[in-house]
C-alpha cells in the first residue's frame, strides 16, 4: 500500500469515527458527540406518590413506568 493510499485509509477511518460519534450523540439526544453511558434500570422504581390506599384503589397503573 502506497503512502497516499494509507493516508486515504486513515482519513476515511477518522471520518467514519466522527460520523458515528455524531450519530450516537444525536441518537441519545444529548447534542454532544460523546455518547451517553448505557445502563439497565431495575424494578421496582421509586415512587412518585404516597397518596393513600383509598385513592390507589380507583387507579390503574397501566404503563408501569412509575410505581404508584
Amino acid at each position, binding site marked *: 500500500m502506497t503512502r497516499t493510499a494509507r493516508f486515504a485509509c486513515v482519513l476515511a477511518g477518522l471520518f467514519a469515527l466522527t460520523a458515528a460519534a455524531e450519530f450516537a450523540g444525536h441518537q441519545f439526544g444529548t447534542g454532544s458527540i460523546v455518547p451517553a453511558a448505557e445502563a*439497565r434500570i431495575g424494578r421496582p422504581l421509586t*415512587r412518585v406518590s*404516597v*397518596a393513600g390506599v383509598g385513592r390507589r384503589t380507583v387507579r390503574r397503573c397501566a404503563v408501569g413506568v412509575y*410505581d404508584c
Partner: protein
Amino acid sequence: MKSNTLAGIIATALTASLLPVATHADEADARRILQSMSDYLGALDTFSFDFDTEQDVVTVDGEKLGLARSGHIAVARPGQVHVTSKGGFTDLEMVFDGGGLTVADADTALYTTVPFEDDLAALIDALRDTYARPLPAADLLIPNAAETLLEEVTEVKDMGSGVIGGIECDHLAFRNFQADWQLWVAQGDTPYPCRFVITSRDVAQAPQYRVTVRDWRETTDGAAFSFTPDDGMMEVDMDTFALKAPNFPAHLTLEAIQ
C-alpha cells in the same frame, strides 16, 4: 395462679392498646402545618410555580442515578393546567383545558391530544398512572391533600425548619409502611410547599423522588390554557407519542416486569 398472671398480662396489654396514644406536640404541629398547606392550596383559584425534579433510578448493578428535569406549572381551577417540563431527552408541554389534554414534545416535534372531560384530581391520576407523565408534586395538588396523604401514615414528626432558596420553611417528616416522605412548607401567610421528597424505603438503595418549588405565585402568570402547535409539529396518537418521546432516555433500558 400462673394462668391468672397470664390473664392479667393479656388484660393489661389489651387495655393499653385501647387507650388513645398520646399525641406529641411536635406531631400535632406537623399535622397542623400540613393541614394549613392543604387548606391554603385548596382555597386558591389560581397559582403557578417553577420546579426542579429529580427521580432516582437504580441500575441492575446497584448504582443510583438521578434524572433531572425543570419546568413551570400553572393551574386555574376548576380544570385548567399548563405545564412545561424539560429534561435532557424530552422538552414537554402539557395543556389541559377542561375538555382535552395535549402533550407535546419540542425535541421530536410531535404532539398528541386526547379527550379528557374530568376534574383536576382525575387528570392528576391519569397523567401519573395512564400516561406516566406525573405532574410535579401531584400529591400536594389533589383536593384535601392532607387527609389523603395521612391515610397510611405511621409516624409524623416536626423536624424544625430549613431554608430553601432563601425561604424559611417548616420541615415535616412522615413514614408509612413502604416509604418515607418529607415536606417543607413555607412559613408565613402563604404556606406553599417548598420541597417534597419521597424515599422508597422498600426498594434497594432507597431511591428518592424530589421536587423543589421556586417562585411561587398566586396567579397563572399569563399561562395559555390552549395549545397551538409550532410550525412543523405533527400530531400523532398517544401510543406513537409515548414511543417517540419516552419517559426515560434511550440509553437507559428498563428491566422487564417480572
